[in-house]
């Protein structure tokens, strides 16, 4: 059993040379930025991590097609760079020389993107599939925009202030006119020299110069 799988694996890898190429039209380039994402807690990228990647991708393919036949061997990887970037293609589990369509691969990855990211403690921007843009979360639209609520509060306070001031002015005026009426009834009319008090406006002519310091006689 073990011998057979090993033989198949070697065959697969021997045949995969031409299938997985840099800039292939049926695969995707992956770029991983572990140090940017995790800083001091970054892990080393090695063969084990690559194995996990291939396994996660196989999981994504299984989930998308709803079949249980995809395996780590279905995911072929090439052109690894020190950047930690590489190309991969997915071959069909039944026929090792047939590649899975690019669109299907993309949809599969899109469906399980979050799971793939979580497996590596990375995000959409640190585990990049070049050519597959990340799906953004739908914008949250609350029923009343929050700014309108704050606006309502402030507007209410200001209007209450104005109404308060106006009402107190009106009350003050009513209070005053009642007092004036009482006074007038008590004293008849306030009159000075036959002229009512309100008409005693003089207008001070400010343009007329005041006395000169040295008056000319």
């Amino acid at each position: 059993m073990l011998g057979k799988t090993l033989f198949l694996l070697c065959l697969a890898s021997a045949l995969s040379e031409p299938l997985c190429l840099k800039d292939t039209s049926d695969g995707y380039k992956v770029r991983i930025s572990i140090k940017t994402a995790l800083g001091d807690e970054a892990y080393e990228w090695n063969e084990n991590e690559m194995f996990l990647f291939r396994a996660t991708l196989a999981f994504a393919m299984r989930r998308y097609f709803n079949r249980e036949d995809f395996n780590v061997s279905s995911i072929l990887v090439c052109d690894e760079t020190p950047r930690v970037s590489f190309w991969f293609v997915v071959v069909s589990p039944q026929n090792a020389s047939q590649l899975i369509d690019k669109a299907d691969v993309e949809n599969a990855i899109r469906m399980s993107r979050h799971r793939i990211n979580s497996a590596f403690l990375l995000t959409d921007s640190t585990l990049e599939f070049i050519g597959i843009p990340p799906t953004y979360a739908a914008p949250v639209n609350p029923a009343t925009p929050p700014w309108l609520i704050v606006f309502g509060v402030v507007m209410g306070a200001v209007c209450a202030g104005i109404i308060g001031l106006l009402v107190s002015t009106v009350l003050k005026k009513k209070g005053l006119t009642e007092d004036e009426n009482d006074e007038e009834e008590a004293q008849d009319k306030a009159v000075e020299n036959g002229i009512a008090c309100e008409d005693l406006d003089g207008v001070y002519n400010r343009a007329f110069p005041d006395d000169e310091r040295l008056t000319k006689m």
Partner: protein
Amino acid sequence: MEKNSRPNWDNPMQFIMACVSYAVGLGNVWRFPYLCQMHGGGGFLIPYLIMLVLEGVPLFYMELAIGQKMRLGSIGAWAAISPYLGGVGFASVVTSLYLCLYYNIINAWSFWYLFHSFQPVLPWAVCPVNSNLTGPLEECERATPTQYFFYRETLNISPSIDEKGSIHTGQALCLLLAWVMVYLFVVRGVKSTGKVVYFTATFPYLVLLVYLIRGVTLHGAINGLKYMFTPKMEHLANPITWINAATQIFFSLGLGFGSLIAFASYNEYNNNFERQAIVVSAINSGTSIFASIVTFAIYGFKATINYESCLERMRLLMLNGFDLAEDTINIEDVLDWMVKLNSTYPDKFAGLADRVETCSLENELNTAVEGTGLAFIVYSEAIKNMPLSQFWSVLYFFMLLLLGMGSMLGNITAIITPLRDFKVISRNMSNEVFNGLVCLFLFLLGLSFSTPPGNYWFTMFNDYAANFSLLFVVLIEIITVSYIYGIKRFEKDIEDMLGHRPNWFWKIMWAVVSPLLLISLFLFYIINYIQGGTATYQAWDKEQGKSVVREYPVYGQVFIGLLLVSSVSCVPITALHAWYKKRAHGKRNRQRTINTVSL
């Protein structure tokens, strides 16, 4: 009798607070730092302080003296000084009207930003996603999220001034709130204004202090401060520096609008306004310098952040383009690596050339921005990068609101006071109704600034409505006081109020230095306007994601002309009217005497 006695400030401190609140406004926060940056950093202080002494304080003193002596608003005061020059007051009122119209729009924007700060993520921090959820909106991608939020979501700006559109409801609501708040503060006239100015004058200083502490502790703030304080003395040789210093003092103190005359008219007759004039002018200039320290600290922070993110982008570009391991290039080595890679793999580097940017801290610091761009775009960009950005955002826009409201109080008082001096209005309408009508009228007119091209009309008003007419008004004012009314009479009035005559310094300033300065400023403006060619404005191009320069259409230029002429022409029209009335009056007198003689 209570009806005819003029209301007064409760105490002289209210008057000082009102003047400080009026003079210390948005210009201190955004125009002065810009001028400092444009004209050689710390060296700009020299022409600024010289102009303050030669022009600012004497003119401020003069306006306070007139207001306190005449105890009338600008129209009545100038008519009393010389009947032919009552038009100066009208010109002031018209200019204040224009100012009130567009100034409150800025308060509306401050409200808008303030209300939008109450969210877990500031809306100008990230680009909104497009409809198919594949990426950020294109317009936002080409510009920056802060620019997008300002031009698209706040203003919904059109590509040019010619487009028509419907009013932005959010803007209209904020403008309504701004006017309602102004009404609340002036509803009882100086009695209500006097209480509010305590808050609007002092609270901004508290915020500036908090921001100063936050600002200087920000990463990279020192770059901005160094940039500001290294004086570049060669700018002093440039006459534009001196002219800008003079104009800044002039507009910063709010001379010529009639607000100072209006405020001073509510003073006690013997109030010592000489000391107050010096104190308020000093506070105003001190605040400008203080605010520019804060601005430059924040500026340095923003420039450093932008520079570092540019370096980070370049680092990623090099790593990805050449497939090097992540830790080969650090952020400090990026520029060296770029040079190395360019020399070792020139072809491959050339392939990346379209995405390569030159990262320069100097360039970032050099991008001088003033006006609404500084306040609403640059500052909000800096704020979004600070930890606890919602708190800093609320604090900042609240401060902007207070500064703006404080100045609005002065502007609206400059309209209300002289109009209320007309018996026709004060007899028939109560204070509250009249003030309400003025606010309502200005609000309805101001709604036109919330349409898509509204921001271009706003810029037009901002650039043309006040500058020229103010220079004209203050020039006429100083010449009237010094030569038509006479320095001797003015001296005596001051002695009457203060108990001592103004010393020789003031007299020389009023009679010689300030008029000369103003005449040269006035001539410079005219020459600049004529030589400048067709007036242009900055339009926001959504395709490119940046501002482009466009010329005003014909009707725009006509409107600019109207703005300039409408306020300035008040002076000759009133002079002619007064002269005509005098002649008619004289003729009638002569006719009467002839009739009696002939009997």
